């Protein structure tokens, strides 16, 4: 599990709230730099943390198995009428796609 606000960090919550910086400080502790870099490009169409809603579907908080299945299907050209995701998914290994699916499934919705 890679929750953005891990249980271990909640101890500091009270103090941080007083500083008005709780969200940022806690996010810092939960921030997996490697995974964020791997997921970085997704935000350019799906919004920061994959949380944007619009004609490009959001990723944040969706079921990890569903996301993984879709990503693998895009990679294998099994999705009809795909425009771009088949070309993008082929740039990642299956393991990386699984990791991305978990990453976005674990983004906490605001």
């Amino acid at each position, binding site marked *: 599990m890679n929750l953005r606000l891990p249980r271990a960090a909640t101890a500091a919550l009270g*103090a941080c709230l007083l*500083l008005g*910086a709780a969200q*940022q400080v806690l996010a810092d502790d939960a921030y997996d730099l490697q995974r*964020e870099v791997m997921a970085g*490009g997704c*935000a350019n169409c799906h919004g920061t943390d994959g949380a944007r809603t*619009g004609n490009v579907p959001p990723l944040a908080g969706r079921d990890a198995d569903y996301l993984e299945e879709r990503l693998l299907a895009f990679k294998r050209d099994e999705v009809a009428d795909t425009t771009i995701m088949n070309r993008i998914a082929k740039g990642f290994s299956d393991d990386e796609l699984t990791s991305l699916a978990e990453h976005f499934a674990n983004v906490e919705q605001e």
Partner: protein
Amino acid sequence: MSFDNTPFQPRLGVSRRQVLKGMGAASSLPLIGGFAPAFASNSDGRVVVIGGGFGGATAAKYLKRANPNLAVTLVEPARTFYTCPFSNLYLGGLREMSKIAHGYDELRDRYGVEVVHTLAQDLDPDSHTVSLANGDTLHYDKLVLSPGIDIRWNALEGYDEAAAELVPHAWKAGPQTELLRRQLEGMEDGGTFVLVAPENPFRCPPGPYERASMVAHYLSQHKPSSKVLILDAKDNFSKQGLFTSGWEQLYGDSIEWVGLSGDGRVTRVDAENREVETEFGTVHRADVLNVVPPQKAGWIAERAGVTDDSGWVPVKPETFESQQVADIYVVGDATVAAPMPKSGFCANAQAKVAAAAIVASLRGDSAPDPYWSNTCYSLIGPEYGISVAGVYRIQDGVIAEVEGSGGLSPSDASPEIRQMEAEYAVGWYNAICQDTWGTDA
């Protein structure tokens, strides 16, 4: 934990965990004015970002997301940034200027970036300082340069700053884009719009051809007897087959493209008379003339000593740190990053890699493995979109496209797919602007 009121002096020995602990202890104390600067003085490092476009704004945001205890200052003269992406849609009448305008409120208010609206006029890599036009001097541990492009004035004979006021380049969005639009509006039906396209490399490889498309769209609506002529200094261009086929379908023979081999390379511009002369002496007269001139990295890059003889910036692919000057990271159009194109998408992607590398380096860690991707949408018509995509990793020490990934929209795509890509182009633009500036277009 000290509460001295001395900003701009990062104490690198303090880890984030220690800061957190210290904050816990401090929570029982009354919070009084002056704490914020003290907090800044206990930062994990000081990063200055120069340039508030796709690269710089993204770098500032993602630095703070990864480590809120960094003191990050963004230096950008403009309070409103107009994007080059979608400025062609403004020319085509599909989008208002206000819908390609972005500000810095989210960076300041949500992420705690200090945004300074002034010009960075010089920097000294030895003392790690940047001097600003407002008289201030900023110290940095790490510097991010996202300077974009500058025009090589007079590299094309007759095309200097004065000429650009008569014959716009509109290759930096803003007043130049508005000037070109006014000229289009003032053109008589039956006139010729001439677009001069440069050799590689330049900002936004498909840009000139999307511009020709959007101008042709405008003309088809308002001045249907007019023509578009593209005079090109090269024989091949981005998404060429897709553009050519789309032009034929939507605009018939209204768009003519002349490449290098057909004497398309312009060698002289006469701005007063709106005439251009090609390599072999053909003179073309335009009713509206748009010159996309030769370019180089934004001038501050040269001051920083990070450019090479090409005028662009070589970087270490793993981190986008300059190959020539330590602690200066350069992202976006200014860099030599092929096969990644000079696009807003790539600037954003490179900024995320550089930000992560800086955060790791200031912690004493090695940089995470980089990942980059790109998608460039182009609109040929309001309901006709095409794209090129790429995913990039490091292979054998250089940036390479992952084999089997990326590529162009299919040449035989249905009208429904072209329409979907036109819609996704808008979805992409809105999302990347939200990711970069936090603004809803």
